[in-house]
C-alpha cells in the first residue's frame, strides 16, 4: 500500500525507476544529478533491482547505450544535467528519431562558463528541439509520479518517444520532501513489469534502423516525428487520468493557481513555482488580483490549454530561467508570444529572465514584478533581466 515517507527528491526518482523495473541503466555521474544513479547502483548491487547497470565513460556513451538497449526492447533509464546533457546532444536526436522510449531525468543545471553546478534551465533549453517529450516537475511527488508515467507514455504504441523528466538542480534535487510512495503491486497495476516492444532488433527478424535518408525521405521522416509529438498530448492526458483514477493524484499539462479572477498571472515552470505561489498568496492578502500558471509540459507545447487558462487575463508575466543571447527573450516567452500573436483578444505578455546559475528568485522579487505588471507600469523592453546589477 502507498505510504508517506520523507525522501530526497533525487531518490524519489530512483525509487520510481526501481518500481518501474527497468532492464538497463546507463549513466555517468554529474552534479546535481549524481544522487539519482548513485541510489540506483545501490539497488542493483543489493539485488533489489534486477537490471544491467552500465558504467559508461561519458554521457554521449550513456545515451548511446540506452539507444542500443531500447532498440532491442529493453526498458531503459539514464539521468544527467548541464554539461552532461550538452555532451549527449547528438544522441538525443537519435533516440527521438528512432522512436525509442527511453526515460531520462534531467537535474536542470546552468551551462558553463563560469563553471556552475547550480540550477537553471539552460541545459534542456539548449537541447529544446531534440524531439523528446519534456516534463518539468516542482517537487518530489511530481517527479516520482512523472517518472512512472513517463515509461507508460513513452512505451505507448501511439507515442514511442523518449521522455525527459526535468527538475531544478539543488532547489529540488537535493531537498528532502514528503512523498506518497507507491508499492510494487500498485505500480504493476499501472505499468506492465516488462516493456512489450512493437519494434525491436532481433536476429530472427533483421531490420535496419537509422539508414541513410536521402533528401526525398527526410521531410516525411521529420513530419512523422512532429505528428508523434503533437499526438502524444492525448496519450499524456489519458495516462495522467488513469494514474489519477488509480492513485488519487490527477495532473494536467498546466496548473493554474488563483487565476479565475486574476488580472495578471505569473507563468513559469519548475521548482520556483513554489515561491511564486507564496508571492501570489501575499499579493492576494493585499487585494491584488494575481495568479500563477505552472507549465508542466513544455514539449509538446500545450497551446489550447494556455489560451483557455489565460482568456480573462490582462497581462502575463513569463519568467524564464534560460535565454538566447542576442535573441528575443527566454524560450517560454518566445513560445507564449507566438501562441497569442494571432488572437484578437489577448493578454499583454512580458518576459522576465531570472534565476540564472542558481540565483534564487525571492518572494519579494516575484511580488514586485507582478505589481509592476499589474500597475501597467511602462516596461521599456519586451523582456528584461530581472536580477542584473546595473
Amino acid at each position: 500500500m502507498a505510504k508517506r515517507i520523507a525522501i530526497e527528491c533525487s531518490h524519489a526518482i530512483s525509487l520510481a525507476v526501481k518500481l518501474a523495473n527497468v532492464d538497463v541503466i546507463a549513466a555517468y555521474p554529474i552534479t546535481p544529478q549524481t544522487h539519482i544513479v548513485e541510489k540506483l547502483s545501490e539497488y542493483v548491487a543489493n539485488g533489489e533491482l534486477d537490471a544491467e547497470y552500465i558504467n559508461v565513460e561519458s554521457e554521449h556513451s550513456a545515451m548511446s547505450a540506452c539507444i542500443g538497449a531500447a532498440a532491442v526492447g529493453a526498458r531503459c533509464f539514464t539521468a544527467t544535467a548541464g554539461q552532461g546533457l550538452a555532451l549527449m546532444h547528438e544522441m538525443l536526436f537519435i533516440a527521438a528519431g528512432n522512436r525509442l522510449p527511453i526515460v531520462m531525468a534531467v537535474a536542470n543545471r546552468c551551462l558553463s562558463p563560469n563553471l556552475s553546478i547550480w540550477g537553471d534551465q539552460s541545459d534542456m533549453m539548449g537541447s529544446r528541439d531534440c524531439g523528446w517529450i519534456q516534463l518539468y516537475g516542482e517537487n518530489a511527488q511530481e517527479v516520482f509520479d512523472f517518472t512512472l508515467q513517463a515509461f507508460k507514455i513513452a512505451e505507448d504504441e501511439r507515442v514511442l518517444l523518449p521522455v525527459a523528466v526535468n527538475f531544478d538542480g539543488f532547489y529540488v534535487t537535493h531537498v528532502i520532501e514528503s512523498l506518497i510512495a507507491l508499492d510494487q503491486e500498485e505500480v504493476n497495476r499501472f505499468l506492465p513489469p516488462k516493456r512489450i516492444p512493437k519494434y525491436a532488433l532481433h536476429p530472427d527478424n533483421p531490420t535496419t534502423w537509422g539508414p541513410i535518408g536521402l533528401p526525398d525521405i527526410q521531410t516525411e521522416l521529420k513530419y512523422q516525428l512532429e505528428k508523434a509529438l503533437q499526438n502524444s498530448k492525448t496519450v499524456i492526458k489519458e495516462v495522467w487520468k488513469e494514474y489519477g483514477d488509480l492513485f488519487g493524484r490527477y495532473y494536467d499539462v498546466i496548473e493554474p493557481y488563483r487565476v479565475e479572477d486574476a488580472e495578471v498571472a505569473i507563468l513559469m515552470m519548475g521548482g520556483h513555482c513554489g515561491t511564486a505561489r507564496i508571492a501570489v498568496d501575499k499579493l492576494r492578502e493585499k487585494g491584488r488580483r494575481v495568479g500563477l500558471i505552472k507549465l508542466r509540459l513544455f514539449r509538446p507545447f500545450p497551446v489550447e490549454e494556455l489560451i483557455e487558462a489565460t482568456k480573462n487575463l490582462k497581462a502575463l508575466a513569463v519568467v524564464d530561467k534560460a535565454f538566447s543571447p542576442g535573441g528575443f527573450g527566454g524560450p517560454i516567452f518566445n513560445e507564449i508570444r507566438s501562441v497569442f500573436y494571432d488572437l484578437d483578444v489577448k493578454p499583454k505578455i512580458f518576459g522576465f529572465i531570472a534565476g540564472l546559475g542558481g540565483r534564487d528568485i525571492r518572494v519579494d522579487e516575484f511580488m514586485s514584478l507582478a505589481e509592476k505588471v499589474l500597475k501597467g507600469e511602462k516596461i521599456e523592453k519586451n523582456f528584461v533581466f530581472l536580477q542584473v546589477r546595473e
Partner: protein
Amino acid sequence: MSQKNEFKLNLKPTWKELPIASIIPKPSTSRFYLTGDWRSFRPVIDKSKCTRCGLCWTYCPDAAITWFKDGSVEVNLDYCKGCGICAEECPVKAITMVEEGEE
C-alpha cells in the same frame, strides 16, 4: 531478378506510408534501389579491344560488372554510378566514359 516481386520499394512515400522511424523492415533491400540513377557518365566497352582480362570486374566498387564464363564483360546500368574506375584501370583502354544523353 525474380526477388523484385517480394519487396515493393516506395521511393516517394507519404509520411504515413513511411515505416515508423523509416525502419527498413527486411534485409538486403538496397538492391531494389537503382543507384544507376546517380550516373552522369556511362562506361562504353569496345569489345574489339577487350582482352577479357576481367580487371574491370575486379575493380568495380559497386559490383556492377558481370564477368561471363567466356571472359566477356557487361555493365549493369541499373547499378553503375559512372565512377570511371573501370575505364581508368582497363589495361588496353577498351572502356570510354560517355556523358549521359550523348551517343
